[in-house]
């Protein structure tokens, strides 16, 4: 439901993004486009071994090579590099190894940096890598989470004495928010248990990570392709001991992140140290292969779920037991990612008893961390798959089962078993609209006909009625979860003498369209033309405070700070306007960019006031010559977008090939500032979520080497692999922010993965299949059909027979 904007009103208008021309043509300041006088180039040597002791590094040949100015190893940096930060100690006894930017004695994943070369040119630096000889003593690799937590397992970090980093538990009986899950399971009429595998994914942002450090000014300036310039500056200071005020961080235009650039990276630290050491600007830009192997990965969990229910479909309890792969080290928010999911397994449902336990496990793989959705896609996938499994067990329509358990529109605000208070939502409306657009009943009919005919192409319908928590985050909630920072955001307005407006935001856009959306919001608020607003971001000098962009927080938190600053501008301008018009401030009203004396035609525009303030010749006594203002906004709650996604998948039972025939996404993201931007976020999110279901997986071989180290093997889909999406919106405004907005950056990714897998399983369930491991490759689907047909006569073939999805090879059950 697109609300038409009122004439002259910017919010609600589907404007093309003002930043697109420069971003799309690449004629802009990507970090790698930068070139500074005297700049040097760095290349990294990375370990081909997943787990090994470094016994010797010989750099003598490299040092003699043309153009080389420095070759450093971990030993050279050991005293200065500190340990990379982890800002989220989830438990008091969490085990966290030292995380050197450059390995000193031991490498713990393939791709870890063991040496770096700085040379006059990038080519010379790359050549010199071949002049470095590293001797390794191999150690046993640790690749399987379930094996890794056994008593006699080989250890990634022997000094920690275990591969288990921490176990985090929430129990509704203990928390007083619900009953005992064990009792619910014990007394249940129906119990369904399943294990799902969340495969490891790679964020695969378009712009590889790139860093330039200029140490020649009083402040050391770092340009980095990062999502988090403010956090990066603070963490550089804390990690390296450099005074915070001596560091400036700039995130120029950044080509995507998806959480993959929510990080303080080894490469940033190493580039900083080398530039300081050499006293000259240094640039490092990773190759795509380096990016795939060593930039942090996402997901990678084993999820065991047990759901208890009555025969009528009422869910009585949910137990979630997770193993989450940390990889070799805890990066910035690694341990907290699966914990974010803890609040989302109960999803849109009224679940009276809930238990969540997650054990974080070290392996000799690339560290994991935030990836679009971060914990919430995993949770949504598992619960939405379970609802389909339970519906099958009960012989109910899966949509009816969901409706029986979901929170009714009139029950909002609703406090869930996992302690969140959902402020608003209307699952009935979104579902009704989705069913209508999808032709749910017609497709069910066709499905039945194809089954009856025994068509080689079977049709399946997948459902995902999802919600998510976004707008990270109320600072006190983060505090209660032991997160190392708050969740506020900063904004400021600078009124220029000519009436133009500079907006400063602590959010750090990397493709989201902040410049357009913020301009629309401020144009409406201050009554100035859209074109007169410039949005500045991503530089710790121009935007001195900020907590950056991730977790669908920019609009719900960042734009609120800007809006609040704009309110202050109006308040500051008011006495000046009254003075200029010789009236009482109480007689003024502000609208359309003008202060009007109530009941008269007399008015003064905000631009006139800005000029008067600049001149400052005639201001009221005691009023400072500025109407600039800033504000910091700390949200009182998360926001809870939701929606109903329906997917129709055709499965070619002869080959296992899956073709998505139609996909309907009806999202409720509250009020919409720019419907075109929302549409773009939904489309991109859908593709990324569908990619998890069908295409993408980071695969390691038995020696811990990444097998999907190029885009020939790590299959990021293109438009050619996607159906045409049908999208629509319902609009239930958030009640916890002034604009009524919710986040939209992650919704499509969170919702779509289970919709697709549910559709595939639905298409071939009659062949004895009740799960296909992701990604649902043609071979896995075909094998599932083969072994499903075989097991149809054997144990476990009955509904809810309880064979784990991991029992059979190829993910078939």
């Amino acid at each position, binding site marked *: 439901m697109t609300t038409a904007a009122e004439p002259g009103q910017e919010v609600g208008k589907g404007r093309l993004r003002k930043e697109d021309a420069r971003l799309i043509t690449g004629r802009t300041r990507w970090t790698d486009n930068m070139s500074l006088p005297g700049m040097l180039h760095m290349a990294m040597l990375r370990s081909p071994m997943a787990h090994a002791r470094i016994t010797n590094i010989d750099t003598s040949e490299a040092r003699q090579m043309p153009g080389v100015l420095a070759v450093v190893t971990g030993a050279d940096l050991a005293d200065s590099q500190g340990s990379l930060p982890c800002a989220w100690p989830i438990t008091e006894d969490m085990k966290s190894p030292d995380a050197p930017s450059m390995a000193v004695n031991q490498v713990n994943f393939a791709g870890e940096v063991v040496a770096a070369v700085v040379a006059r040119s*990038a080519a010379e630096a790359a050549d010199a890598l071949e002049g470095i000889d590293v001797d390794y003593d191999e150690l046993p690799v640790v690749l399987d989470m379930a094996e890794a937590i056994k008593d006699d397992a080989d250890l990634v970090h022997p000094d920690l004495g275990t591969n288990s980093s921490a176990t985090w538990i929430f129990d509704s009986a203990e928390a007083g928010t619900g009953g005992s899950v064990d009792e619910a399971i014990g007394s249940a009429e129906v119990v369904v248990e399943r294990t799902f595998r969340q495969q490891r994914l790679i964020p695969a942002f378009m712009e590889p990570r790139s860093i330039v450090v200029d140490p020649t000014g009083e402040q050391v300036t770092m340009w980095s392709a990062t999502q988090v310039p403010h956090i990066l500056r603070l963490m550089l200071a804390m990690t390296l001991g450099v005074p915070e005020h001596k560091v400036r961080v700039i995130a120029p235009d950044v080509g995507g992140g998806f959480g993959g650039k929510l990080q303080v990276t080894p490469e940033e630290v190493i580039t900083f140290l080398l530039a300081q050491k050499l006293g000259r600007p240094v640039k490092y830009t990773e190759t795509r292969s380096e990016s795939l192997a060593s930039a942090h990965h996402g997901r990678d969990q084993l999820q065991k779920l047990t759901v208890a229910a009555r025969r009528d479909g009422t869910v009585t309890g949910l137990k979630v037991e997770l193993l989450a792969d940390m990889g070799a080290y805890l990066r910035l928010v690694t341990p907290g990612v699966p914990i974010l999911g803890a609040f989302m397994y109960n999803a849109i449902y009224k679940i009276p008893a809930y238990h969540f336990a997650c054990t974080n496990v070290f392996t000799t793989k690339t560290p994991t961390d935030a990836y679009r959705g971060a914990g919430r896609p995993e949770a949504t996938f598992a619960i939405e798959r379970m609802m389909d499994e339970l519906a099958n067990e009960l012989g109910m329509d899966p949509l009816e089962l969901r409706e029986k358990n979901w929170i009714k529109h009139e029950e909002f605000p609703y406090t869930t078993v996992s302690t969140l208070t959902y402020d608003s939502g209307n699952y009935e409306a979104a579902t009704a609209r989705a069913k209508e657009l999808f032709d749910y009943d017609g497709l069910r009919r066709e499905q039945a006909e194809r089954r009856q005919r025994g068509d080689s192409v079977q049709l399946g319908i997948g459902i995902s009625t999802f919600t998510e928590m976004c707008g990270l985050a109320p600072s006190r909630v983060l505090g209660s979860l032991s997160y190392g920072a708050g969740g506020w955001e900063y904004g400021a307005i600078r009124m220029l003498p000519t009436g133009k407006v500079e907006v400063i935001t602590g959010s750090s856009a990397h493709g989201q369209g902040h410049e357009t959306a913020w301009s629309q919001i401020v144009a409406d608020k201050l009554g100035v033309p859209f074109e007169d607003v410039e949005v500045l971001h991503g530089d710790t000098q121009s935007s001195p405070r900020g907590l950056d962009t991730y977790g669908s927080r920019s609009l719900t938190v960042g734009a609120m700070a800007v809006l609040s600053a704009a309110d202050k501008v109006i308040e500051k301008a008011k006495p000046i306007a009254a003075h200029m018009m010789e009236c009482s401030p109480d007689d003024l009203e502000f609208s359309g960019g003008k202060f009007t004396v109530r009941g008269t035609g007399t008015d003064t525009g905000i631009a006139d006031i800005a000029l008067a303030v600049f001149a400052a010749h005639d201001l009221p006594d005691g009023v400072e010559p500025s109407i600039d203002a800033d504000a910091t906004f700390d949200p009182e709650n998360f926001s809870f977008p939701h929606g109903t996604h329906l997917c129709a998948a055709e499965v070619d039972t002869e080959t296992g*090939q899956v073709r998505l025939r139609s996909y309907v996404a009806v999202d409720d993201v509250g009020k919409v500032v720019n419907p075109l931007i929302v549409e773009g976020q939904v489309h991109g999110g859908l593709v990324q979520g569908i990619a998890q279901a069908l*295409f993408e997986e980071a695969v390691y071989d038995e020696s811990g080497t990444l*097998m999907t180290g190029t885009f020939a093997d790590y*299959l990021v889909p*293109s438009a050619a*692999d996607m159906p045409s999406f049908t999208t629509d919106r319902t609009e239930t405004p958030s009640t916890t922010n002034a604009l009524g907005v919710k986040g939209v950056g992650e919704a499509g990714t969170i919702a779509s993965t289970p919709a697709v897998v549910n559709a595939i399983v639905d298409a071939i369930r009659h062949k004895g299949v009740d799960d296909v491991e992701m990604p649902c490759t043609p071979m896995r689907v075909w094998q599932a059909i083969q072994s499903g047909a075989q097991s149809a006569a054997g144990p476990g073939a009955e509904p809810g027979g309880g064979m784990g999805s991991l029992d059979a090879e190829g993910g078939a059950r």
Partner: protein
Amino acid sequence: MIPAQFDYVAPTTVDDAVRALADAGDEAKVLAGGQSLIPVLRMRLAAPTKLIDLGKVAELRGVREDGNALVIGAMTSHYDVVRDPLIAEHAQLIAMATSTVADSQVRHRGTFGGSLAHADPAGDLLAPALALDAEMVVHGMDGRRVIPASEFFVDYFTTALRPGELLTDVRVPKYTGWHAHYEKFNRVAQAWSIVGVAAAVQVEGHTIQQARVGLTNMSSVPVRATGVERALIGQEATPEAIKAAAEHAVEGTMPVADGNADAAYREHLAKVLTSRAVTAACG
């Protein structure tokens, strides 16, 4: 990444190119579009000392008729092959297979001869060349020789080209009036074939008079499915007959296992896709 340093020459005639190749010795590589070689160089999986770029040899581009054959210049781009009217008329199978290669950008840069000489068993053009009895015309310092496709593909990324020899033209007999189909199976649009089947048939009435079937990625080299061909000839083009013939598709194959498919699944696919390719070709 940045390739290791190499010398670069761009001759403008076949003679100059052959001479440059002879002069450069073992460490030279021929650049014929670069859609496979450049990534290999950038990842430093190979470090030839000299690249001989054939991009400026005009005589190597284009398609012409020579009696009962078409002659396709080795440097004819995939894009030009797909659009070429002679190929459409006399060797439709080649155009169909070529149109499935990678994406539009690759098809503009990559070349017919480059793909064949690269001899990637997952490449889509090898099986059609084999099925259609193409002949590879090569030039070296010792002159010209012609190698039948059946002898040209030796192993993974290995051909019968001798050191110093260039693939210059590919001669394809005319299959005027035949019907063809290339059935490619992959996971995303721009990817290599997991399995591909190239089929060309000559049908009179409803009877299959002649059949040519080649398999992509079912061995270290393209495979001619002669068992399928024999089983098709003389048959009515019915689904049952085609399906029965397709059961022979795995004969003589040695499929590999990789992340996309194990050997058993590849064998299964070869049968299913052969049936589909022949059915589509028979129209």
